[in-house]
């Protein structure tokens, strides 16, 4: 079953006085099945972030539709959108976006607290999660006291503690060193093996090579896609890098 369906999505930015228009996304269509791990790749300015913002209901498309579990994101009212986002989507950002004023524990619990979950239930969910993400000992620490990798793991914990339908990750490895990157990607694979649907936007080949499927976006359009199938991560890496070479040097489509 498709958990996310994007159909004919377009986004046009108009300059303030309506003089120039920029098409950030052109008729993008794709779908993500339950339990899939999809990476979206593209160069800077290809429209990745615009796409992610629309999927996260942070931005509205000019035309087209986004269906999350057969429910249109565009039909949700402004009032309910925050609660919807909080309960059905999980986010991991490049710069972690942890609040300085909270300990890691409180940062992770934030979405649950906002939804009015009772404290026992929070504890019940937090414990195994913290164990799995290897941050159980760090819960009392504050974001400025831990490393980047640890921060990102806390951010992942915050994203998945609500058991979201879809985990959206925006350049999750962008601010991490190589070791922390490896750790995070393993974690994503592990989460995916446990059934978590993940959609990741990145321009790191290494990050994308862990995904089961990679979509390439160029100039606002879906240009190509690769399935991992039964191949290894290394093979996937090679395929992606070949595709990117074609995209950057080949000029013409397909």
């Amino acid at each position, binding site marked *: 079953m498709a958990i996310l369906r994007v159909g004919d999505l377009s986004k046009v930015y108009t300059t303030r006085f309506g003089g120039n228009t920029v098409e950030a996304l052109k008729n993008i269509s794709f779908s993500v099945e339950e339990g899939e791990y999809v990476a979206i790749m593209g160069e800077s300015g290809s429209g990745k972030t615009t796409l992610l913002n629309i999927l996260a209901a942070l931005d509205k498309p000019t035309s087209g539709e986004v269906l999350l579990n057969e429910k249109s994101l565009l039909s949700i009212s402004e*009032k309910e959108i925050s*609660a919807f986002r909080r309960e059905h989507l999980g986010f991991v950002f490049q710069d972690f*976006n942890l*609040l*300085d*004023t909270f300990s890691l524990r409180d940062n992770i619990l934030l*979405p649950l*607290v*906002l939804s009015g979950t009772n404290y026992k239930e*929070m504890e019940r969910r937090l414990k195994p999660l913290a164990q799995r993400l290897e941050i159980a000992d760090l819960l009392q620490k504050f974001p400025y006291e831990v490393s980047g990798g640890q921060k990102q793991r806390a951010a992942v914990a915050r994203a998945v503690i609500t058991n979201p339908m879809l985990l959206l990750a925006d350049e999750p490895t962008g601010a991490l060193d190589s070791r922390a990157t490896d750790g995070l990607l393993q974690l994503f694979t592990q989460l995916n093996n446990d059934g978590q649907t993940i959609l990741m936007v990145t321009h790191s080949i290494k990050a994308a090579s862990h995904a089961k499927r990679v979509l390439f976006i160029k100039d606002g359009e879906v240009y190509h896609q690769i399935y991992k199938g039964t191949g290894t991560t290394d093979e996937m890496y090679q395929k992606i890098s070949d595709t990117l070479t074609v995209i950057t040097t080949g000029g013409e489509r397909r």
Partner: protein
Amino acid sequence: MNKLFYPKLAATNIKKNGKIYLPYILTCIFTVAMFYIICSLYKNKGLEGMRGANTLITTLGFGVWVTAIFAVIFLFYTNSFLMKRRKKEFGLYNILGMEKKHISKVVFWETAYIALFSLAFGLICGMVLDKLMYLLVSYMLDIEVTLNFYVSGYALTATLLLFCAIFLLIFLNSMRQIHLAKPVELLKGGNVGEKEPKTKWILAILGFGCLIAAYTISITVENPVAAMSYFFIAVILVIIGTYMVFTAGSIAILKLLRKNKAYYYKPRHFISVSGLLYRMKQNAVGLSNICILSTMVLVMISSTVSLWIGMDDILNSIYPKDINITLREVTPQNCEKVERIVEENLLEKNLEVQNLQNFSYLSFSAYRDGSNFKVAEDSDVMTSVSSNNFIILNFLTAEDYNWLTGQSAVLDTDEVIVLSPDREYTSDTLTVFDKTFQVTSALDGEEIGSQSAFDTYDVVVQNAQVLATLSDLQTQNYGELATDIYYEYRFDLDTDAQTEIAVHRAIADDLTDADMGVYIQSRENSKSDFLGSYGGLFFIGLFLSVLFTMATILIIYYKQISEGYDDQERFQIMQKVGLSKKETRKTIHSQILTVFFLPLVTAGVHIAFAFPVIARLLRLFNLSNTMLYAVCTLASFLLFALLYAVIYSLTAKAYYKIVSSKS
């Protein structure tokens, strides 16, 4: 490089940072103007000549010092805030290749511009407003003024010297801040990874202890003389206590709240408790400053206004009649002589004695001991003055009492009537010098003797013989400090102030010639002295209040702005994590509201607890109308709260602009 590069860059910098520099420059101008005005008034020739000028000028001199000290501290504080905000900018210059000495040049020009600008405008404003202030003072003190524009040389030099020194100091401090920092630190500027505040239990408890001690002093000290000395202790305790409670106490309380999981993990409490915890660390000192300044403003305004409004009451209580004569060497001949001198003088002016009150009385101090009055051993007369039980006893005869009040009381040798306006007399007997009297009636009516800062009891005894016995006993007990029976002769005059003063002088001269220990006072004659001192206090009270209020406004404004920049990022993260815009706005709004109204509420509590002690202090100034003081306090608090709310909502706009600028 172009010679004008640095001056030009400095000018652009100030323009670009207008949002934080404009209030600063306005403050500088305002402070300069205020300092010029107070200096100019202090040296004003017109005020020198008037009666009661001495106290006024002393008060103004005090005002000059307070304003100067205030100017130094305040401008310094504001500037270091500005520098903190601009660290990032300087860091960027540094990275773009400007050396620290070049940055110093830019900062030098900036400071020079601001100094020049604020001195020029400040002095112009000062000179214009000076005239206005002078008019205000002369109106308050009821003196004639000749209007002519002049520039006070003294004030000009003093202002120039002081503010040049302040700006030099500010410049040196900015240099210090820039030189100490590394470029990376400069770039990071204000938001270096803030650590979570630690709980300082001892400080918190000490802070609450200080406040409780100060409040207890205010409530329990009933004696005005003791209140005077304890008041300053209490003020210092309150200041220390406020700082401690705001810095340590608030964090301790918030951390306790956070430990309570069931309370803490609720949507509303979750964000606000942790947000406040973070805020209090950065803002505690600023908030205590606001709180203390507000308290000072309120105390000054309410007490000086009450003194000013209550001045006629005060005059009436000190001088029950227009002319008051006290004869110390009481003999029948002397009494007659006083009467004769008064009559002769009045005849000359075609005036008559009206509402005459004449009586003999014996007055001495004692202290309450249960229902009895104990007379101090002479060694502890001085220490007992500051005891809560220190009182004044006035004895007069039934004959005089009946003549004064129109009653027809008849008493036995061992019977007395007690008049106690200050506190009810409940006992059936009255014992003094081991003599016990039966109290036939205890009234809480008007006092007959003149009012004093202490609790006073008027005791009516049978006749002059009893009075004489008491006088003898008192002489034995007090020795050299004993007083005699005095003779009071006082009356009203139906005439204008000038004639009254003339009559006063004439009688005084004749009485002095007669040389029999006479003391004469008249309301009109003393009024100008009172105007000088109370009017001066009132003026200084107003002046400093305006100054402190301005400081409060500026601190609030800068707090809002820095809060805004800090919250910008947090605001966005919260929205990304799933808080709606409305919710975010609501939580942030409630936090700021708490943070900014906390000082006002605390100031209100301070004022409420300071009320008893200040009411007693005012009795030293002969203001016994506590109701008046209560009304003045309440009125000034309400006015101030209103002003505070207006300032808050205006500055909150600036805050929201910053917070929502990125999203």
